[in-house]
């Protein structure tokens, strides 16, 4: 079983549309959406949820106001500015800012009155679903949720489990933008990364950074330049920068009105009746299959 992950660095370059197209072309693949804080793949694949579960991977401090003696040891010890004082009297008590708290437990351990506890914080939900192209694992991080990298790892692990059980040949992963924990977690252990870039000054900068990350992780990566014709000069620079980092370009997709049209109709470009992208994406997929 092989795992292919689509990443981009920059958001909005077309990861999800391209991954959904791959899903429609692959036979017997398990699909995973690892963009857990702003997932979109389900809008094209319209999954039917079969199983779901809560995700909690971090903790948050809770202060019992009745036990707090107002000494503020915790306030001095907290490195995240998550403890604030409440009330105006000389005996001011403290409160936790849930958003700033990272659940390290230092406050709990320094409290002389045992007024602090750590409790599990629910930070998302995962889903196992069926789609017209095969089983799909996806998730949704709670707003401002911590540990998105762990939720990504959970989604990938479930997808691989399903693939192993069902004898699926491929796991296709839609990755998040950026290059911090969720992107690193998405790329970890993948057999092949597919980087989708767009030819803008931002796109060029973001592509070189995600390609550097691939090299840093010693992961094999291929490049697709989407909306190639918006700036042919920058497209060529992206291809050159890719080649310098051993990231070979396997496809150029010029801007295609049919793509937003297909998305507006909750379909992949492969299922849409028009557009030049269909044959290009099919050619790209053939190259990926050959590589795998």
């Amino acid at each position: 079983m092989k795992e292919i992950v689509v990443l981009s660095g920059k958001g909005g370059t077309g990861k999800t549309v391209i991954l959904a197209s791959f899903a429609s072309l692959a036979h017997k693949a398990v699909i995973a959406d690892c963009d857990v804080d702003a997932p979109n793949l389900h809008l094209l694949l319209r999954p039917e949820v079969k199983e779901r579960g809560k995700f909690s991977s971090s903790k948050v401090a809770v202060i019992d106001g009745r036990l707090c003696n107002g000494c503020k040891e915790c306030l001095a010890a907290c490195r995240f500015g998550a403890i604030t004082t409440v009330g105006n009297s000389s005996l001011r008590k403290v409160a936790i800012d849930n958003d700033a708290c990272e659940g390290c437990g230092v406050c709990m351990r320094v409290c002389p009155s045992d007024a602090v506890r750590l409790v599990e914080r629910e930070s998302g939900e995962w889903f196992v679903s069926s789609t017209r192209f095969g089983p799909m694992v996806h998730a949704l991080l709670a707003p401002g949720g911590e540990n998105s990298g762990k939720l990504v790892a959970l989604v990938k692990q479930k997808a691989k489990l399903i693939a192993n059980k069902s004898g699926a040949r491929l796991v296709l992963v839609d990755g998040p933008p950026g290059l911090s924990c969720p992107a690193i977690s998405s790329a970890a252990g993948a057999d092949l990364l597919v980087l989708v870039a767009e030819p803008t000054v931002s796109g060029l900068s973001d592509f070189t950074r995600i390609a550097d990350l691939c090299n840093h992780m010693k992961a094999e990566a291929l490049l697709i330049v989407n909306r190639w014709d918006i700036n042919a000069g920058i497209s060529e620079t992206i291809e050159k920068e890719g080649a310098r980092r051993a990231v070979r370009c396997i496809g150029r997709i010029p801007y295609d009105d049919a793509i937003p049209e297909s998305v507006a109709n909750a379909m992949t470009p492969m299922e849409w009746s028009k557009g030049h992208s269909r044959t290009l994406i099919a050619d790209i997929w053939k190259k990926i299959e050959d590589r795998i």
Partner: protein
Amino acid sequence: MARISIASGKGGTGKTLVATNLAAVAGDAHLVDLDVEEPNCHLFFTCEEQSREVVNRKVPFIIKEKCTSCGNCAKVCEFHAIVSLPKDILVFDELCHGCGACSRFCPEEAIEERDHPIGELVRARVDGLRGLTYGRLKIGEASATALVRRVKKEISEDGLTVIDCPPGTACPAVESMRDSDLCVLVTEPTPFGLHDLKLALAVTAKLRLPHVVLVNKKGLPGPDIKGFCTDKKIPLIGELPFERSIAELYSKGGLLVSSPKHEQTFRSVLKNLLEEVERL
């Protein structure tokens, strides 16, 4: 005076486009790029770099001579960044949140906190701006939030500050939006744009952050964002059309406000935003 953050949920909706052009049209804004994973604002200006400093976070370093392998550090670490073996202690820097529990509670004082570089902070002088400040995360570094927090310290209370946020709704995005006076949610009229706008609205609700919506790429086929905003009583602060000429200009690193037509649009968006801040 005012701290305006530009956020979105979905990536690629035009946050940087809006942040750079708003800052440029304001004349004396401090532009702060908190998308430290992929900072891009500086690409749209001629920057004269004034300073660049390495930003570190603290990670534990075990002083072997003092360590008795008692395992207390591993026990108090909620992030499993320290593993205690019978005769050795292993530290996983990438899992460390820098809370200091391990060193604080080490009975032998055998843990020292040492600097671990996570990225850099750049301050630049730019014609037409009060300044441009951005962070750049080191490749392979997992956590962006600490760097976001450090760059935010560069924001002064005086004058107008325009903040470019990272996409998404996870911790770095939330930390970037937090503490602003007004948040502009940039979206596009596609199913993805509307879906992620709703997720971003959950964040502004959680932070109790005043917010407005700006639609970019108006004309793409898809849902009616204007109607959605009317229903939800969210001010729609402006609309930018979906035009190939805009995409081509942006691709080259050009500012839209270099054309009188778009300059007018951004002037009116800025005026609306400042009035909105005034009313709050």
